[in-house]
């Protein structure tokens, strides 16, 4: 998947990027900001402990899923409450394809990279099967219809025990790519022991970057214009020759493939998949992400994903130091609940006072100081 994304993203990128010479590239402040961020992200595994690396990996997986949902909800205006279902398809699909043939739980024993690609494709097919509905229903109607996916998903996860392990879930086989296995067998790079979290970090970075660039290409190109037209005025879009139902169906499939990939990455980080995780709360979290970050843009999805998925981790880590927040079971507000209050309130506040999401704050600053960016 990552290869396919990278090769397809490049032409779209070169087509939409301004024909800037090397000089303008060097004088733009943005270039330096991006380079600094990239270096920071590459260096982090050498300094952070496992807890923060895992938190970061959750954020990356969430970012991939949120980018996909933002293509559907933000750019095309189609609400989906069924994103958790496609995450589950990706996660469990990977386990089934890559898992060894066991006593009680079946697996196909395929190479992990192939299993990951197949899992993403299966998520796409699942989205395609739903597209007769996804293509014909609009906005919030689709949101309710996709609720069905959550319940179907939960039903299958709990009942197809020889594939999913039932309520106890199943172990996730480690990823291996070009002879490198992403498990706990430690290799040492520059005196830092590299376990699974460190290795996965780089895989996560590559996948997130590829997914982000591909989505940016889609949004800035012809399909993106068509999607925005459908969102803003469906009939006008149809009159202009945009095949509305086909586009809606196609975006739904694309978005479910993104969710599938996010599911694969999540499974690799968790190392065990359990059905309870893929419930309706997860879908709501993803919707909260894209609204908080900013609807309709890749940056918005990434910012929102970081916000929503890092918040509970931060609160858990520092629950002793924070007022009102206490460890679960002690009667106070548990970190998980505290973070739900925060992002629930953030969704409401962002829509009312900052309709473009958090990325709009950055855009406003850029508009105030145009000379820096020009």
């Amino acid at each position, binding site marked *: 998947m990552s290869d396919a994304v990278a090769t397809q993203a490049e032409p779209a990128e070169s087509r939409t990027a301004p024909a800037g010479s090397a000089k303008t590239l060097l004088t733009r402040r943005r270039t330096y900001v991006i380079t600094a961020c990239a270096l920071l992200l590459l260096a982090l595994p050498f300094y952070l402990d496992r807890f923060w690396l895992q938190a970061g990996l959750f954020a990356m997986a969430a970012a991939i899923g949120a980018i996909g949902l933002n293509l559907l909800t933000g750019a095309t205006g189609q609400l989906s409450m069924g994103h958790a279902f496609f995450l589950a398809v990706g996660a469990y699909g990977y386990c089934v394809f890559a898992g060894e043939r066991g006593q009680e739980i079946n697996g196909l024993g395929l190479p992990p990279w192939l299993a990951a690609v197949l899992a993403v494709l299966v998520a796409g097919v699942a989205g395609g099967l739903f597209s007769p509905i996804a293509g014909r229903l609009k906005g919030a109607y689709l949101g309710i219809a996709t609720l069905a996916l959550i319940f*179907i998903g939960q*039903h299958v996860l709990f009942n197809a025990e020889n594939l999913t392990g039932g309520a106890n879930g199943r172990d996730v086989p480690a990823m291996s790519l070009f002879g490198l296995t992403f498990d706990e067998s430690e290799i040492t790079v520059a005196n830092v022991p590299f376990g699974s979290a460190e290795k996965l970090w780089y895989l996560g970075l590559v996948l997130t970057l590829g997914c982000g660039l591909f989505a940016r290409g889609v949004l800035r190109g012809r399909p993106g214009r068509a999607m925005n037209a459908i969102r803003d005025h469906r009939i006008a879009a149809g009159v202009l020759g945009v095949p509305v139902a086909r586009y809606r169906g196609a975006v739904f499939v694309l978005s479910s493939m993104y969710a599938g990939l996010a599911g694969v990455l999540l499974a690799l980080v968790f190392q065990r998949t359990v059905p309870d995780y893929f419930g309706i709360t997860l879908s709501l979290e993803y919707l909260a992400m894209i609204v908080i970050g900013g609807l309709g843009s890749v940056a918005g999805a990434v910012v929102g994903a970081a916000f929503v998925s890092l918040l509970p981790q931060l609160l858990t880590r520092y629950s002793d130091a924070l007022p009102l927040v206490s460890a679960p079971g002690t009667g106070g507000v548990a970190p998980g609940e505290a973070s739900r209050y925060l*992002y629930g309130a953030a969704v409401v506040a962002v829509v009312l006072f900052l309709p473009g999401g958090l990325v709009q704050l950055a855009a406003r600053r850029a508009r105030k100081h145009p000379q820096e960016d020009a």
Partner: protein
Amino acid sequence: MSDVSTFLELLLNGVSMGSVYALIALGFVVIFRATEVVNFAHASLLLAGGYVTASLHDDIGFWPALGVGIAAAAVVGAAVEFLVMRRYRGHDHSVLAIVTIGVDILLTTELTRRLGTDVLTLGDPWGDAVLTVGGVSIAHTRIAAFVAAALLITAFLLTFRYTSWGVAMRAAAESSETAALMGVRLGRVSLGAWAVAGGLAAVAALFLTVFPTPGLERATSLAALKAFPAAILGGLDSTTGALVGGLIVGVTESLATGYQSELAFMGRGLGDLAPYLVMTLILLLRPSGLFGTKELARV
């Protein structure tokens, strides 16, 4: 027990549960018609009403507690409209639907935190009494649910048809701009819609938590979610649709649960899934629901 009486029992239970779902779906449709907003916070309004009733009934008795619960849910609904929905300056109704998701996250988190792992009873007077007529037995609670829902729905439909509030509501649903020009105060209409929806949800909360279900618990909000398929398979903008949709969901759920052993190849817990399967099937055939307004534009 014969096959026929089993079937009749399941059918009656289904109709009774269906009328409760219809109550919830009706509130949902009322909000949609008045404001074009799909209210995903509906389940949490229901939970709020149920919680207030459950925590008061010991001190002030069941009926006053139910009254306070209904009023509280109506106030919560109106507050959501007044404090949140009215402040939105944009025009995109699916963004407003997402706001209601934010509200739902807030309310549900607060209520489930208060509930914890408790199962609260609402102190209803029916208990676990069962009425048996000709081999068919049905719980008193189920009869009460059906009667109450039927009365409320009739009262609501009459109000909707004959009072000036109902006329204003229908006018706003038909064309909000024209209604505003004719002197209908849209703010008041949508405030009223949210309050009514909250009140209906609180009544439904009572009947979702009485015998044979154990009581008000975290999972109650999941049961309340079944009103969504009820509303959409009937057609979101149709009150008739909400009633028929509610009955379809209730009966399907009851039959699927009752004949679970015959349908064992589909796995356990089929009853919870059945309403959603039916919704998917109906939407495949009729995208705007059974009674919903068909879209005239074909693009």
